[in-house]
Structures are given as structure tokens and as C-alpha cells.
């Protein structure tokens, strides 16, 4: 580990204790079979069943807008700040910029993460930006930048979609003009079994080829973000090997999943609007 002068450093070399547990001799195939049995998953969900989502706004009082999402055990918090001048920019841009930062807490995953952003986090930041760029009315704040920070407290799979969904709610909460509400969902595919909203183990198993009877089937993870009322896809990200049919099917599944999420978000935002309006009239 490189020495960080601005933090307290531990000993030079540390290893996670999970490396020294009783050897896990199960093959990937067995592990996967344990996860999915008789059309049921280890947490008793159906294959295409989304985990329960809780969403709350206004958690970060210091931010302009914020949202906290719990999707199963996955917990993500997103905050949005007022537009500010873009640092170190000299040219004029007609459209505002979106700055996204996606970060896992050091303790959010099984393996400890570093304080600095790693490549995965940087990629997720870029994907978030991509999803939100076309959602926000950027022409409303030319030459300014809106900062969006997503922080994962606990990663149990599908953290990126949770972050994008929460970011959409946080933006609406912050009063940043948007073309539409945005929701996102994740789908894992392994051996032609599709798992909606995979948990962290499922996601891990879907990300690598697991041979079944010596053959390697289609496998991968898809993250898709949708704008609800215009029925547009604002971001699509896929890893793994998938056939064309798989992708079309997956898009259908994900589209439905997104549509199911929308009422929840709408309900929450309407509640929020009603509440603030009530407070306002009381103040007067």
C-alpha cells in the first residue's frame, strides 16, 4: 500500500482473513447452483423478482438535494449540490456540466477498499454521468457544474443502478430541472438463467464464465437506465458474452423492471412535494 501522508497508515502489508478460511473447494458451478435452486434464489426471490426498495429524501441537510436508497441490503446515499463555477475552465460552454463521483465505502464490500477512487469506481462515475447527462436540462445552467456524489455504504449487488435511481430522485429533490425521472435496473445472466437485481454473489458469478458440462454458456451483467415518460434509454452498460436474443430479452425484462419502480419513486416525490408545500404555508 502506498504511504498516504494525509491519513493514518496501517502496517505495510495486511491481508484479509477470509483468505485463510477452510478452503472453499466448491466449483463455480456448484456455487451457482446453490444460489439458484428450482427457480428460487438463495434469498427466496423468484428469478425476475426485484428486491424491495426503500427511498428517502432530504437526509443530507447540507446538500441541495439528497436521496438514500436501500435495495435489499445494498445501501447507497446520493447528494446533489447547487450549480457552481466550473473550476479551471476558460472556454464558455452553452450547456452546463454534470460531475459525478461514485465511491464505495472502505468497509462496504467483503474485501476492504482503498480511500482513493479505484478504476471500478471511476468507471461507475463515468457511467452515472452518462446516464444523467441526457436527463438533466443542462442548458438551464450554462457554464456551471452540478455536483452529484454517490456513496455506497453497503454493497450487496446492483449498486450502480441503485445509485443512478437515487441520483434521479436527489436531482428532483434538489429542484434541478430535468427532462424526466430516471430509474435504473441490473440484470445478471448465467447459463441462460436471468436474475433480476442480482445480489453481490450472484453478480460476481454472472461476471465470469462458469462452465456447465464443459460448455461455457452466455453470461454477463447488464445495467440499464430509463427515462420513464418518454420511454427512452439513457444508459446501457453490459459486460460478458451475450447473444443478441439475450440482449433483446434482457432489455424487455429491464424495461418492465424500471416501469415497476417508477410508481414508488413518484409516490415518494409527491409526498415530499406535499410535505414541503404544507411547511411553506405554515410558515406564512
Amino acid at each position, binding site marked *: 500500500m502506498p504511504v498516504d501522508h494525509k491519513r493514518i497508515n496501517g502496517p505495510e502489508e495486511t491481508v484479509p482473513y477470509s483468505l485463510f478460511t477452510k478452503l472453499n473447494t466448491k466449483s463455480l458451478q456448484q456455487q451457482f447452483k446453490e444460489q439458484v435452486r428450482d427457480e428460487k434464489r438463495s434469498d427466496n426471490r423468484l428469478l425476475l423478482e426485484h428486491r424491495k426498495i426503500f427511498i428517502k429524501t432530504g437526509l443530507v441537510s447540507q446538500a441541495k438535494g439528497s436521496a438514500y436508497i436501500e435495495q435489499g441490503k445494498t445501501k447507497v446515499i446520493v447528494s446533489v449540490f447547487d450549480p457552481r463555477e466550473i473550476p479551471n475552465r476558460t472556454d464558455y460552454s452553452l450547456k452546463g456540466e454534470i460531475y459525478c463521483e461514485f465511491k464505495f465505502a472502505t468497509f462496504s464490500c467483503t474485501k476492504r477498499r482503498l480511500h482513493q477512487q479505484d478504476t471500478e469506481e471511476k468507471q461507475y462515475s463515468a457511467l452515472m454521468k452518462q446516464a444523467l447527462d*441526457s436527463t438533466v436540462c*443542462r442548458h438551464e445552467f450554462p457554464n456551471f457544474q452540478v455536483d452529484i456524489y454517490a456513496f455506497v455504504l453497503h454493497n450487496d449487488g446492483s449498486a450502480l443502478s441503485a445509485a443512478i435511481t437515487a441520483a434521479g430522485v436527489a436531482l428532483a429533490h434538489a429542484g434541478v430541472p430535468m427532462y424526466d425521472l430516471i430509474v435504473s435496473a441490473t440484470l445478471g445472466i448465467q447459463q441462460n438463467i436471468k436474475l433480476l437485481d442480482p445480489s453481490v454473489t450472484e453478480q460476481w458469478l454472472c461476471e465470469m464464465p462458469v462452465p456447465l458440462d464443459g460448455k461455457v454458456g452466455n453470461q454477463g451483467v447488464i445495467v440499464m437506465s430509463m427515462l420513464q415518460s*418518454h420511454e427512452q*434509454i*439513457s444508459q446501457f452498460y453490459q459486460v460478458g458474452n451475450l447473444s443478441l436474443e439475450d440482449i*433483446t430479452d434482457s432489455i*424487455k425484462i429491464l*424495461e418492465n423492471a424500471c416501469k415497476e419502480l417508477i410508481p414508488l419513486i413518484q409516490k415518494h416525490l409527491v409526498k415530499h412535494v406535499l410535505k414541503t408545500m404544507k411547511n411553506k404555508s405554515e410558515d406564512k
Partner: protein
Amino acid sequence: MMSSVRKAIVSNCEKKFLIKNLAEWTRLDGRAFDEFREIQIEFGKDWGCCYVSLGKTKVLAQVSCEIQQPKSSRPSEGILNINIELNPIAAPHFEAGRQSDLSVQLNRLLEKCLKDSKAVDLESLCIKMNEKVWALRLDINVLNHEGNILDCASIAALAALAHFRRPDVTSDGEEFIIHSYKQRDPIPLVIQHYPVCITYSIFNGGEFILADPMLLEENVADAFFIDWIECIQGTLWFTPWRVDVILNTTNKAASRAETVVQLIKEAIEQDNERRLEKVELGFHKAVEAKPVENSIGDLSICIDQWSVKHKKSKKKKNKLTEGEEKIIKEISETVQVTEIEALGVGSAALVPQDSEDGNRWQASDSENDDDDVMVVDIPKPVIETVDILDTGSEEEIVVILNADKKTKKEEKENKTMIDTILT
């Protein structure tokens, strides 16, 4: 990058005054051209802690050690790290905790002087091959910058290394026991030879050569000539000037180095004696002994010397010219220039000193800058955005780039796609 904020600018007036004075064989502080400022070496209570002043330039050096695994390329050698810090106390434009060109340059020169010349016997620092060696760390803090940091720092570094003692280590076969200073007498380092840096500044393309430049002289000088004597000699930074002048100067530097090393050795001996006598040591003792310094007094001394030294230096100058010829004949035997190197961008020395850029070391700017550029790969997005301008609003519709996917999507999202096409 060192910020230019708070940096003193040398005015043309000052420059001209300096050069004019030199033409009359006078230096601003009344020294002769080849006269060095007074050296003072004090040791702290800790081993390897040394406080050196060269005139008003002051430097603190401290050596520390710990046990480390050796580098795989040198499994039986200890490690010596040198780190020079331009403490913001030394000058207002120095910044804490930030590497500037000057500090990098000084660090490199000191490393050349002490490490590359193998002044310290690193092999004696090995405890167990491939596993445990002593890693020495030499921290040099510049406390007051009145010119010629390098000489001062090199003296402090050498004195600190020569003064330092490491704890004794014994082995009982398997385990190593590190004895505290109280349990067993600590062991001094093996110093193979004593290299010190001697700096001359050169004016008017070699017309005037000044030993131990002070701050203003340093800022105005055309070039520098630095020797590190004892093992290797290196020279650098010069505008085209005559070989005989180089050799002459090198020669003078050699004799100067001898005196300096002698001084260091004496200082250490004195300190050792006092330690043996169990006299209380440390900086606090030195503070008590001396009266409060008076800065006004200083100035008057300076003025006094002004008139007196004037003639002296002229005499000296004559002597030098006489001596020059002799020395040239002797050079080949006494002095060997093994390495002539222009550090940084050599050509930088040719550029006349800019008044705003009083700092000679910035010559290497252009080279270092490249390191700062980072190439970032941005993952290619799978999605392309198409602006639909018809509605007047700046709306964007997203279409999947991949043609196959697009058709699939069209089937699925028949309605929307048709919508898009219609508009």
C-alpha cells in the same frame, strides 16, 4: 512548482551595483573574492543531529535509522535516503511540504555528493543478507536562506553522518536483538571519505569568480561552479570560459575542502570529548552561552570592513594572477577532472539572468513538465446521443449505437421509434 508569490525580485539597480563593485574588486559584505564565510558547527543532544551556519545561511541535519528489508538489487547493502526540505522559515517563497525545482536539484546534488561517491560504507549496515539492513534517513532542513544552501547543507549532512551512531545489534542465532543506547554503546557509521560541496559563482563569463556566494550574488550570477571534493570531482554550470580558470578554481576548491573537512572532524572530536566528560550537551547549552544577537551591530561591522577590505582584496587579486600560471602546470597531477557535467538543460546557463527569474535551477522546467501529463482512457460509450432540434428544446434522445440492437429495439419500442422518425 514554486510559487512566484512573495519571491524577491532582484532589481537592475542592485545588479549593476553588484557588478560595478566587483569591477572594483569589492564584494558587498566586504569579503575577498576567494574568502568564505565563517562556518559554525553545533551538535544536538541526539546522535546525528547537526546545526550548521555558513555566515547567515543556516541548516539543520538529522540522521535517523530503522531496520528494513534491503533492495533486491543490493541485498547486502544498507540504504541511505537523503531528503532536503526547503522549510518556509528560510525564505517567504518556500512552501511547506511541496517539492520545488530547487529542492529537487539540491537533493540530486547532495545524493551525488554523498551517495554516488560512496562516502558511507553501506555494506557495514547489513544485518542479514536479503532480510534485514539498516536504512538511514538523512533529513536536512534549511532554516535561513542567505545564499549557498548547497555548501551549507553538504557540510551539515556530512557532519551529521559522521556524528551519527546506530544502535548495536546482536544475534543469538535465530533472533536479532536491538540494544538500546543505554544497554550497549552505539556504533558510529563507517565514513570512507569526506566529500563536501564548494560553490563558486561566476560573473561576466568568468571574469569574476566568487567563492561562497551570498544571496544577492547567487541571484545575479551568470553561472555556478560546484565541486565535490575527495573522491570524485564534478563541475557544472558554466558559460564558456577558459580551461585554466576552471582548473585554477578547482584547485582552490580542493584546498578549501580540506579545511572544511578538518573543521568537521575537529567539531566531532570536540563533541565526543565533551560527551566522554559527561558535560551536558544540546542546543539549549549553546543558547545560554551566547548573548542576544544584535542586528544593528551587524550592519556597523559591515560598514567598517568596507573601507579596510577594499585594499586587501586588491592585493589578493594580484597574488592570484601570479599564482595562476604555476597552478596550471600542476593541475594534471593534483587535480583530475573526471566528470564535467551540465545538469538540467545545459544551455540554460547561457541565457542571461532574468531579473524576475532569480532562480538558476528552473532551467530543467521543460523536461519535468512532461511527467505531469497523464493520458486517461475514456471508455467508449455504447450509446450515442442524437439531438432532436425540432421541438425547440434541447432535448436528447438516446439511440443504441449497435445496429443489431437498434433493430431489436425498434421492434420492441415500435411506438417511440416511429414517433422519432415522424418528427
